[in-house]
C-alpha cells in the first residue's frame, strides 16, 4: 500500500509527523519536500527516484494537485533549505493499514453466505500480510487456484486451506463478528474501499476504481504519438512493460495498436486498412459520427481503447476485461478516415443505472466543446431507452466540471421556457437525468430557495446572464449540437447467454 495514503486520510487522529532537514542522499520514497513548481514552492511527496539521462531525478506528487501534474524533477528543483517530512515508520504504518480494515469490513453478501465466507477468510488472514506483502517475499497470502478456466477469479467459492487460513472454529466466530460490524458499517459509508471489496464490486460491473492502491502509480509512458499529435500521458496505463524505456509510444489512430518504435509503427501503417472505429455507425451529422462497438465482439480494439484512455483517466481500472461494455466512439471525418475524438463506455446492463462508465475526450481535442457533445449523446441514448441515467462514480475533476456545465445548461434552458411551475422529477424525466443530479445542479447553482413558506426554484440573474453569455459565444464559435433525428439506434438487447460473462 502506498505510503501517501495517509495524506488522504480525511479524519482520524492526526499522526505526528517527523520533520527535519534532509540531504540529497537521504531523500527517499515517501519523503515530503518542497519542490519548485510554476515559480512557487509546493510541498510534494517523492514517489520514485531514478537516474535518467545521467542525472538523479525524483518523481514527485504535489500535494493538492491532481496526479496528472506529477512529474520527474531534477534535484535542483527540490528546496532542501526547508525541512522535509519523513515518512511514518514502518511499524505504525502497518498498524494503521490494519486498523481501518477492522473498522470497515466488507459487507457480506447475505444471500451468498458461502462466498462471503471465503471472502472473509482472505479478509482476515490474507489482508494484513498483503499490506506488507511487497516486503515479505515468499509469503503466499492467497492459496493457489485450480487451473480451470472458470476458476481464475479472485473470488472462489472453495479454497484450499493453507497455513495462513484460520481454523474453522475461528472462522465461525469471526463471521459473526464481522457481520455485526458490517451492520454498523452500513450506517456510515465506508471511506476506504478495501482491495477485495473493490475487486468484488468490479467483478460484477463498473469500470471505475475507488481504490488508492489501484491508482497510485508512477506514470509509465513519457509521450505518445497519435495521429497528428504528440500527447503527454497523465496517468499510468498497463501498456506492455517494454515501453517503459521508449521515448515515444506510437499509437495508430484507427486501430489504436501501439508500437514502441517508429520503424515498427511505419510498417504497421503500411499494412493497416482500418479507417474508422470498427463498429456500426449509429449517428452522423455534419461534424461528427458515433460508432457503437461491442466489447465482446471487438475485444482487441476495445482493449486498445481502454489502454489509451487509461492514460488520461485516473480512476479507470483495467482489472477486468471489456466484455460487459459497449463503447460509443465519437469521430470526426475527413479524407483520411474517421478520427477518434472521444468516447464513452457503457455497461450493457448497469445494476446502478449508470448510463456512462468512462467518458473521455482525447487531450488533443479537449476544450473544443466535444465533451458536452459526448455527454449530450449519452443522455440521448438514455432517452431512447426510456431510462434515467447518471455517470458512474467517482467522477474526475474534469468530469465533474463537464457534467455540471452540461446539467446547468440543460436545466436552465428547460426552465427558461417561461415555465411557471416545475417539478424536480419531471425535469429528470425530460432530460433523462436522475433526480439526484437535478437536485445537485439546482442546489449548486443556488436555485433552490425557501420563500413564503414553500420551496421555490429561482432562475437567478447570474444563471440567466451566464446562459446568455454562453449563447452569444456559441453564436460566434458555432455550437455542436446533437440532432436526435439523426440517431439510428435501437437499444441493443442481449440474450441471457451473452449476458453471462464467461466465454
Amino acid at each position: 500500500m502506498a505510503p501517501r495514503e495517509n495524506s488522504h486520510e480525511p479524519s482520524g487522529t492526526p499522526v505526528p509527523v517527523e520533520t527535519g532537514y534532509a540531504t540529497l542522499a537521504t531523500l527517499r520514497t515517501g519523503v515530503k519536500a518542497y519542490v519548485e513548481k510554476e515559480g512557487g514552492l509546493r510541498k510534494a511527496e517523492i514517489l520514485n527516484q531514478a537516474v535518467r539521462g545521467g542525472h538523479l531525478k525524483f518523481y514527485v506528487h504535489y500535494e493538492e494537485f491532481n496526479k496528472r501534474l506529477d512529474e520527474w524533477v531534477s534535484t535542483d528543483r527540490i528546496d532542501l533549505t526547508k525541512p522535509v517530512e519523513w515518512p511514518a515508520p514502518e511499524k505504525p504504518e502497518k498498524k494503521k493499514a490494519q486498523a481501518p480494515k477492522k473498522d470497515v469490513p466488507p459487507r457480506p453478501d447475505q444471500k451468498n453466505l458461502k462466498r462471503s465466507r471465503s471472502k472473509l477468510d482472505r479478509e482476515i488472514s490474507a489482508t494484513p500480510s498483503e499490506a506488507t506483502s511487497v516486503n515479505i517475499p515468499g509469503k503466499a497470502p492467497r492459496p493457489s487456484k485450480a487451473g480451470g478456466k472458470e476458476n481464475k477469479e479472485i473470488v472462489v467459492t472453495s479454497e484450499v486451506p493453507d497455513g495462513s487460513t484460520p481454523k474453522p472454529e475461528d472462522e465461525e466466530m469471526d463471521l459473526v463478528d464481522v457481520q455485526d460490524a458490517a451492520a454498523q458499517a452500513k450506517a456510515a459509508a465506508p471511506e476506504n474501499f478495501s482491495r477485495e471489496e473493490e475487486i468484488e464490486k468490479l467483478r460484477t460491473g463498473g469500470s471505475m476504481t475507488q481504490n488508492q492502491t489501484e491508482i497510485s502509480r508512477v506514470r509509465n509512458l513519457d509521450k505518445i504519438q497519435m495521429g497528428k499529435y504528440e500527447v503527454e500521458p497523465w496517468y499510468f496505463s498497463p501498456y506492455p512493460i517494454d515501453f517503459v524505456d521508449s521515448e515515444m509510444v506510437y499509437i495508430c489512430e484507427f486501430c489504436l495498436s501501439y508500437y514502441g518504435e517508429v520503424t515498427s509503427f511505419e510498417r504497421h501503417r503500411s499494412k493497416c486498412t482500418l479507417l474508422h472505429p470498427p463498429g456500426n455507425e449509429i449517428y452522423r451529422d455534419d461534424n461528427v459520427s458515433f460508432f457503437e462497438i461491442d466489447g465482446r465482439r471487438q475485444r482487441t480494439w476495445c482493449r486498445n481503447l481502454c489502454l489509451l484512455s487509461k492514460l488520461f483517466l485516473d480512476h479507470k481500472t483495467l482489472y477486468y476485461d471489456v466484455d460487459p461494455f459497449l463503447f460509443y466512439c465519437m469521430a470526426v471525418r475527413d479524407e483520411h478516415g474517421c478520427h477518434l475524438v472521444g468516447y464513452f463506455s457503457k455497461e450493457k446492463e448497469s445494476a446502478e443505472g449508470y448510463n456512462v462508465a468512462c467518458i473521455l475526450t482525447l487531450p488533443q481535442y479537449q476544450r473544443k466543446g466535444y465533451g458536452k457533445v459526448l455527454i449530450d449523446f449519452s443522455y440521448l441514448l438514455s432517452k431512447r431507452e426510456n431510462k434515467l441515467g447518471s455517470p458512474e462514480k467517482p467522477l474526475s475533476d474534469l468530469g465533474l466540471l463537464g457534467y455540471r456545465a452540461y446539467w446547468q445548461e440543460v436545466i436552465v434552458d428547460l426552465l427558461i421556457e417561461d415555465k411557471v411551475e416545475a417539478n424536480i422529477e419531471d425535469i429528470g424525466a425530460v432530460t433523462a437525468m436522475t433526480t439526484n443530479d437535478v437536485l445537485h445542479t439546482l442546489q449548486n447553482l443556488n436555485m433552490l430557495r425557501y420563500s413564503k413558506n414553500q420551496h421555490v426554484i429561482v432562475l437567478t440573474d447570474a444563471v440567466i446572464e451566464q446562459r446568455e453569455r454562453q449563447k452569444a459565444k456559441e453564436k460566434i464559435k458555432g455550437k455542436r449540437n446533437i440532432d436526435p433525428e439523426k440517431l439510428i439506434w435501437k437499444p441493443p438487447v442481449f440474450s441471457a447467454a451473452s449476458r453471462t460473462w464467461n466465454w
Partner: protein
Amino acid sequence: MTQRATGQRFRQRKLSTKQNLPVLREHEVEQLQDDDATRHIPKVETGVEKGEEIEHHLQAVISAAQAAAQGGGTVAQLYIPTPDAVQSKLQYEDLYPRHFTQPATYIRFSSTVEDTIGVAYCMTIEDAGWLKAYNQKKGKSVHCPEDEFEECMNFFEETSQTKQPYATVDNAPVLSYEDLEAEFDETISESARRFAKDIYSHWKNQRLLKNNRPLLPSLKFETNLETDDSDPYVCFRRREVRQVRKTRGRDAQVTEKLKKLRKELEEARFLMSQVKRREFMIRDQLAMDKQIFDQRSAVKEIKRKLGVKESDEELLINQKPPSKPKQKNEQAAIRRELPGGHRPPLTRPDGRLVDSDLVYLDDQLAKKQEAIDGFIEENLMKHQKWNVGWVDKTWRPITPPLEQPASKSDFRRVFTSSQLPTPPASVSDDEIGDTISVHPRKQLEPRRSTRIRYATPPDDVPYQDQTRYRRRVGRGGRQMIDRRGVKRQKLEPIEERILDRYKYDGDSSEDEEVYPVDWTDNLHIRYRIMIERQGDKQHAQVAAQNRRAIENHNRSASGHLLPPSNPAAAAASA
C-alpha cells in the same frame, strides 16, 4: 447535522421532488438571506473522490463558478491545467493516406483489428538493419521484401507461442529450425519460405537476446500466479459468470421446469420402448410368414409326390373361399389378395374371412353411380322414343358455338377442312384407347354431343405424331370426321411439305377439296385471333358439359364399370 435537520423539520417542510415548485425570477423572491433556508435540503455529493475534491485547481474552478452563481459578476474563466498535446513532427500525410470515402448510408462494420492489420509482426529497427545487410549480401538476384520477412518472423513467433506457451516461465530453449519447418502451413507463403532458413538465424538471435520471450511487446494477462494481483501491468482479467439472484419464485420455477423436463423425457422413453416392441413383433411376424410359406410349399411338394389333384387353393387358410358364385366378387377378392402382406389376414373362428362380409365403399359408390347413370340413360332413351318419327326443327338452327364464327366467315370451308380449333380440355382419366370406343356409342344419340372431344394423348408421344380424330357436324347435319397424325405406310419418300398439306386428307369427306392455305396470311391470322377471343368463354363451359356427358355415357353403355386392372386379375387367376 442530522440532529439539526430533525430540529428544523417542524419549522420547514422537507423538499419533495414530486411536488410542483413555482419557478421564479430573482426579483420575484424576497431577498432574505437566511442561511438556514437551504440547510435542510439534503446535500448531494459531488461524486468526486474525497481525496481529490480538495485539489487546488478543482477548488479554484468550483469556487469561481460558485461566485458566478451567487451573482458575483464576471469571473475570468478558469481551467484545470492539463499536460500538453502538441503537433507531431511525423509526416501525417505519408502515414495516413487519403483513402476514406464516406458512404451515403451509415457504416456497418464487423471486421476485427486482427482482420484489418495484416501480418501482426512489424519490423523493428534491428530487423530493418539485418534485412538490408542480408539483401546486400545476397545481391540483386535474391531480394527479400519486407512483407515476406515479416511473414516469416510472424510465423516463427506464432508457432513458438503455440508450441511453447510457457517459454517465459520455464526457460525453454528456442525452437530449432527443424521444429518450425515441420509446422509450415498456409499462413506462410511459398515466396516467404525461401527465406525462412536465413531469417530463422536472425529470429533466434533476437529471441536469445530477450530470454526466449516473445519479440512483440505484449500485454500482461493473468498467469494464475500469485504475483498477478500486485502486478499493475496485469490487465483484462476474465470475469466470472454473473450470479443470478436467488429468490423463492425462481427456485419454484426451476423445479417446475425440471419436473416438466423429466415428464417429457419419460414420455419419450415410453414411446421409444413401444416402438421397439412393435418392431420386434413385426420381425416375429415376418418370420412366421416365412415359415408358413415354407411349410405350404413343402405341402405342395408332398401333394405333387402323392399325386393329389386337388386345388392348391384349399391349403391357403387365409384365402377368401370362392364360395360366392359371382365373378365380380371373386375378382375383387383376388385383387384384394394381391397387394400382399399389407393386410394381415383376419379370420373368424369359423375359418371364414371377416373380409367377405364387409361392404366396400368403392363398390357402394360404384353402385350408386350406376343407378344414377342408368336413370339418366333410361330417360334419354325414352325421350328419343317419344321423338321418333318427329322432325325436330328446334335444334337444327343452333349450330355449335365454335362453328358459329366459321359459318359467318367466307372461308368456312377452308377452315373446316384444315383448321382445327383448339381441342377442348379432355377428360383425364380415360386412356387413349377409349376414344375409339366412343365412336360407335356416339351414333346412338347424335344430339347429345355435337362436338367431339379428344382424349388425352400420352405425354411421351410428340404432338405431331399423336393420332387425333374429331367429328364435326356441318350444315344440313353432315358429319365430318377429321383425323390427324395417322401413320400411313410410306411408299415413297414424299416431300415433307406436301405431306403436311395432305395431313387431314383422306377419308374425312369425299366431297371436300383441299385448298392450300398460306397460314401467315393476314386474313388467317386475324381469324385465329377472333377464334381465340370468342371461344375462350364458351369454351370452358362447353368443355365441362361435354366431358360430363361423355363420362356418364361411358359408364352407362357398358352396364357396369370394368375393372381397370384386367391384366392383373387375369394373372392372379392363372
